């Protein structure tokens, strides 16, 4: 068998697999709608503000309602020592200013 035939067959299999995964993604999105609605209702009824992604520190468990200078909240030189602190950006924005 020619080398190019093997290569094109490999690319074709890869493209078909890739397309199948994209179809899987679309299907899974439709199937998860019910679950997302249920989670949305839970958030609404419990009045939750955050997702439960990192439970190790309070400012990574609830980044939306964390103190403004989260990483330095314990004292001015307290550098962030939680690994998830490097994934969660500190809250910007805010209305508390004059």
């Amino acid at each position: 068998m020619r080398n190019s035939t093997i290569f094109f067959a490999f690319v074709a299999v890869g493209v078909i697999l890739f397309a199948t995964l994209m179809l899987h993604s679309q299907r899974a999105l439709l199937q998860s709608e019910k679950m997302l609605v249920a989670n949305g209702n839970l958030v609404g009824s419990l009045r939750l503000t955050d997702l439960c992604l990192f439970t190790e520190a309070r400012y990574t468990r609830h980044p939306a309602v964390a103190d403004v200078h989260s990483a330095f909240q314990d004292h001015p030189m307290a550098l962030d020592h939680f690994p998830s602190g490097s994934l969660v950006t500190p809250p910007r924005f805010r209305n508390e200013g004059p």
Partner: protein
Amino acid sequence: MNRYLERHRNIADFALSSLMRRKGKNISLLLVYTLVVFIIASVLFFIHALKHEAALILKDAPDMVVQRLVAGRQDLIPAGYGDKIASIRGVSEVTPRLWGYYFDAAVGANYTMMTAELQGPEPEKIIIGNGVARVRRLAAGDIMTFRAYDGKTSLLQVQSVLPYESEIAASDLVIMHEADFRLLFNFPAKEATDLAVKVRNPSEISTVAAKIVKQLPDARPILKSEILRTYDSIFDWRGGMIIVILAMALLSFIIFAWDKATGLSAEERKEIGILKSIGWETADVLLLKFWEGTAISLSAFLSGVILAYGHVFFFSASLFEPALKGWAVLYPEFRLTPAVDAYQLAVLFFLTVLPYTFTTIIPSWRAATVDPDAAMRS
């Protein structure tokens, strides 16, 4: 047309044989290249799916949460603040939220303790998240012990466990009756952790927030749009670990490109010289190098992206788990909904496949334009 295709196939055949002659070097290159694409694609898939899910789940979050700040830190908010806020025109509902944290010394995990007005548990009963049930091996009907503020043990019965599907929102929750909550933490009456505010007209939320700050200067309103923005900026590319991953990937590509752009090996130069001397045109040599580059970069792209999809959506991004878990004992187990951003994939394709393919062509063009005799002798 057939002749044109056959020419390409012949050159592709030759390019693949040429790659196979330097099997060790090219296979290791392919593996590293695939790994780089895999890492970048995994990060992109994970972040996009998480942001997609956060936006959908948190769209039902409170319109506004009002905290009280004392010396720059959040403090308990008196019920009187709620009355003042409720009197502002446009506010339809103010609900005190009672919540806090509890460190469970038995397993070393932190729980989020809270009360619920609607569908909450009966007194002396709790509803727990699936993560709490997992780490404490609890089921409905079991008794869970808590150490109260005064050191006494408080026994609360598990009324129900929240479903597995809710882990992304409620894995570490312990929901209890208000009386139990106040008793457990000696939480002052007529005070709350913060206030959830509902505004009649969504376009007036920021106006209401400004009025709250004017009336209660120590209050800090957090709008729903800001909550959503927090999760939109989570895993921001400027964030610590993300920028390290992206910088590593970028450096790897620079090394690949540098390796290719700084020239060909003596063996490759000799090969080009021989090809030219037996009648190959410069365009044929460039086509040969184009096929070599395409074979490597396209194979790496397809393999890397497919593996990344499986890693993130079938194996719950298990390679990122140590970083995501951090020091946490209670870690939510959730399977992300596979939301894929076609735009990001297209960018990844253009950033990985095209630069590599073109950097293989440039030095070959320089080698192919010199005299074949000189190329072979060099």
